[in-house]
């Protein structure tokens, strides 16, 4: 079968690879209909997470049809059209019982790498390096999904492939941030980053009852999507002092909930941006945390900051004093998708949650290298490139 693979730093190719097979009784095999680029893939492709082996299949946000199932699979049937969260969770450990699915004890078969880095191992993630389990990703014609009864969700007939596709990762990640960030009815929520995850965090906050939601970015086409498709306010950080703007828009308080949806390759202006770029390139810090710093400065006293963007290692100039003295709650997580997908699909079916606008570019899987180039360069207003392995 054809698959898009990581062939080296900033090198994506499409190759013929062996088809996957059932390895465990709880597995299913999917025929992939749609699979999509993600900003966090760029960290892998660019070599910022040095745990990719040349030949690894990329992709962790996808939708497909079940074509084969293991003998222990009960809830999912061959022929089901399903969407699957990007994190692998067993559904049986204590973390899964607490609905903290991305922390599953049994989802990462290579826990030694992340235990060594972070002290504990989170669950595994499809197509996201050998630090996160070494699973083959979804940019392929077929894919194996372990723990299928826990991770596969049947898509209602009235929801299109393109809309449901983003329930795999973008919406679930956004929903995780808005919910675990503690968004309550009447809150003011600010979101850093107007990519797919940031937009969906904003929409989730609105559906959870937030009264005012502000999204911060610098790309005009993404800010326009925020206004048109999400219904939130938009702020251009390249022309505005974000902290002052948020203070003015919130009666001097600052947002109740601040959600960072940018990650380790954050762009920022001025001295701070140059400082982080230089330190990261010299490997004096692994990640660029400018949006996290700004979120902590902007947040109201006693408020909540949620880190949704992907980070891997230490950062510099973390404003610990502001966090402590303002009494902030700072929390982060990968997505606990299995907890939220049923609710998300219901909102998609009702029309309250739409995602089709995120799929700005669609192409065959054979054009994966070009799709990633357009996505990385944000060319032609690209927000996400969707690949169709069957076309």
């Amino acid at each position: 079968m054809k698959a898009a693979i990581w062939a080296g730093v900033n090198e994506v190719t499409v190759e013929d690879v062996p088809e996957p097979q059932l390895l465990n009784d709880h597995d299913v095999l999917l025929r992939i209909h749609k699979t999509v680029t993600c900003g966090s893939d760029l960290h892998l492709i660019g070599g910022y997470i040095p745990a990719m082996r040349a030949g690894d299949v990329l992709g962790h946000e996808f939708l497909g049809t079940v074509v084969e199932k293991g003998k222990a699979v009960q809830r999912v049937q061959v022929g089901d059209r399903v969407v699957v969260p990007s994190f692998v969770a067993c559904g049986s450990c204590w973390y899964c019982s607490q609905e903290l699915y991305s922390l599953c004890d049994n989802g990462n078969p290579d826990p030694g790498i992340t235990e060594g880095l972070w002290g504990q191992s989170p669950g595994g993630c499809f197509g996201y390096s050998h630090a996160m389990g070494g699973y083959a990703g979804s940019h392929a014609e077929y894919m194996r999904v372990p723990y299928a009864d826990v991770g596969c969700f049947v898509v209602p007939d009235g929801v299109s492939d393109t809309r449901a596709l983003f329930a795999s990762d973008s919406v679930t990640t956004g929903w995780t941030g808005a919910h675990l960030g503690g968004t309550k009815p009447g809150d003011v929520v600010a979101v850093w980053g107007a990519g797919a995850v940031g937009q969906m965090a904003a929409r989730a906050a609105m559906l959870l009852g937030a009264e005012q939601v502000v999204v911060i970015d610098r790309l005009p086409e993404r800010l326009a999507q925020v206004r048109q498709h999400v219904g939130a306010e938009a702020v251009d950080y390249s022309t505005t002092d974000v902290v002052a703007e948020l203070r003015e828009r919130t009666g001097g308080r600052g947002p109740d909930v601040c959600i960072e949806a940018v990650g380790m390759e954050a762009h920022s202006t001025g001295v701070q941006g140059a400082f982080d770029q230089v330190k990261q390139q010299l490997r004096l810090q692994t990640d660029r945390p400018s949006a996290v710093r700004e979120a902590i400065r902007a947040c109201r006293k006693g408020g909540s900051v949620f880190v949704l963007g992907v980070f891997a290692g230490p950062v510099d100039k973390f404003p610990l004093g502001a966090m402590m003295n303002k009494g902030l709650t700072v929390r982060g997580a990968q997505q606990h998708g299995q907890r939220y997908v049923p609710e998300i699909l219901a909102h998609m079916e009702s029309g309250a949650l739409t995602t089709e606008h995120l799929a700005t570019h669609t192409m065959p899987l054979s054009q994966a290298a070009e799709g990633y180039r357009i996505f990385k360069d944000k060319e032609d207003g690209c927000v996400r490139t969707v690949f169709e392995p069957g076309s």
Partner: protein
Amino acid sequence: MMDRLLRQAAGLGGAALGKLQHTRIPGVGQASTTEPADVAARRWRAVTVFRDDLAGPFPELEALGPDLEVRLQPAPGGRGTELYGRFHGTPGADRIGELRAALRRTKQLAEVGEVLRVDPQPHGTRKPTVQGAALEGAAARAPKEGVL
């Protein structure tokens, strides 16, 4: 020549992973791991299994031989049962790695009913690079490594 270099790189990758949890750079690895290796080697290794009724036999642990001591105790807060293993004497890194992997397999068998596999799986061309070989060595050793 190249094959030999790649084998050495794979070995170094595995060894580097073994050292990671003892790295003492703040923010990297486990900076709090300051005790001598022989003291660390004699510690109990444990997993918490989300089963209140957990009981032996544990074939994965028994396979490690008679010098392994095993004990169970209830975990607080309804978190199941704590399963501990410790070798008599001062085991080497390889034996501790075998214990880590056996504890993880035992937990999976008790909680899920099977041990998760990841290989074989689809992949494209594996270029013969030193960095890639080191990563493969680290990944191969990962089930036996970590801070457990």
